[in-house]
């Protein structure tokens, strides 16, 4: 596979090491372990509350994950800001609606990408909530604590992903 230059990125081991230190600092100073997928549940709860506040108030899952702005909500917003800062200051910010690899395989059509990405998002969050975590909550936080749930979930994330990626890109370039 082509490496497309080094693209001025950091060595992934260095970036990963610094992220590890960040995760330790977060646990040390605030007792917080990172996660992301619950925020989508809370956001949906907020939106649904606009239309049917009573019903949302009575739903079991929204009682468990009450729609509110919490640490994780701001954490997820922070990811957007941090990436925006890193990309604009290194001139790697690029407006792009169809990823390169996708385009090579499925063409430049934006509608096709939009439909698949939307469905993918809906399926992914459903799975993440059923598993009780995503690659942040299970993958990072669960694994670093040696939680059995973290490793079982992480392995299943990759098994599901590898199988579908193989189907999507079967016969395409690469292997």
């Amino acid at each position: 596979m082509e490496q497309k230059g080094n693209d001025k990125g950091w060595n992934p081991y260095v970036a990963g090491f610094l992220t590890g230190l960040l995760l330790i600092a977060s646990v040390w100073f605030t007792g917080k372990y990172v996660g992301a997928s619950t925020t989508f549940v809370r956001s949906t709860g907020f939106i649904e509350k606009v239309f049917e506040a009573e019903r949302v108030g009575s739903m079991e899952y929204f009682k468990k994950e009450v729609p509110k702005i919490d640490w994780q909500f701001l954490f997820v917003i922070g990811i957007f800001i941090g990436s925006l800062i890193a990309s604009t200051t290194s001139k790697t910010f690029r407006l792009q609606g169809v990823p390169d690899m996708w385009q090579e395989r499925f063409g430049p059509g934006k509608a096709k990408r939009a439909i698949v990405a939307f469905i993918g998002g809906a399926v992914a969050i459903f799975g993440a909530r059923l598993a009780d975590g995503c690659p942040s909550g299970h993958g990072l936080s669960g694994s670093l604590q040696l939680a059995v749930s973290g490793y079982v979930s992480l392995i299943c994330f990759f098994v599901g992903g590898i199988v579908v990626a193989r189907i999507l890109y079967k016969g395409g370039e690469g292997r």
Partner: protein
Amino acid sequence: MNELIYGLVTGIIFGFLLQKGRVIRYDKQLGALRLLDMTIVKFMFTSILVAMVGVYILKDLGIAKLSLKATVLGGNIVGGLIFGIGWALLGYCPGTQLGALGEGRWDAVWGILGMLVGAGIFAEMYSFLKRTVLQWGDFGKITIPQALGINHWIVVAAFVIIGILMFRFFEKKGL
């Protein structure tokens, strides 16, 4: 209020490092799932190993507490596989897609919208899932050292060795 600021700051640094490590792009995520480019695995496992050592030291010193998610094999396995399917279709994770948007990859918007809808569908089905899938194989909040009945440092050491061997393999194969 402090908690929210900590969340935002942690998120900003995390997003910055994710962008610098080049791990939030569709091409990198699918590159890993197609077993062509292990950048995200290198990043993720380095941060897991570093944080694992740090957090267990903090725990042994009584400074930090673990915050485990229960191991429910039904949820972890079925949810994990479903997440993987969606992940391969979308090419972003719940947290990283905000980072993708931050570096201009606006197809992440479709994923975010999909996730809001998917979270709503999950909330509707929660009562049913709680009675079925989420009852299968509930082992509670367990860690690997607890399950094996051995000291956690033995497991940490084993993971560090496995991680280093894996990284050496990736570098040898140019992945």
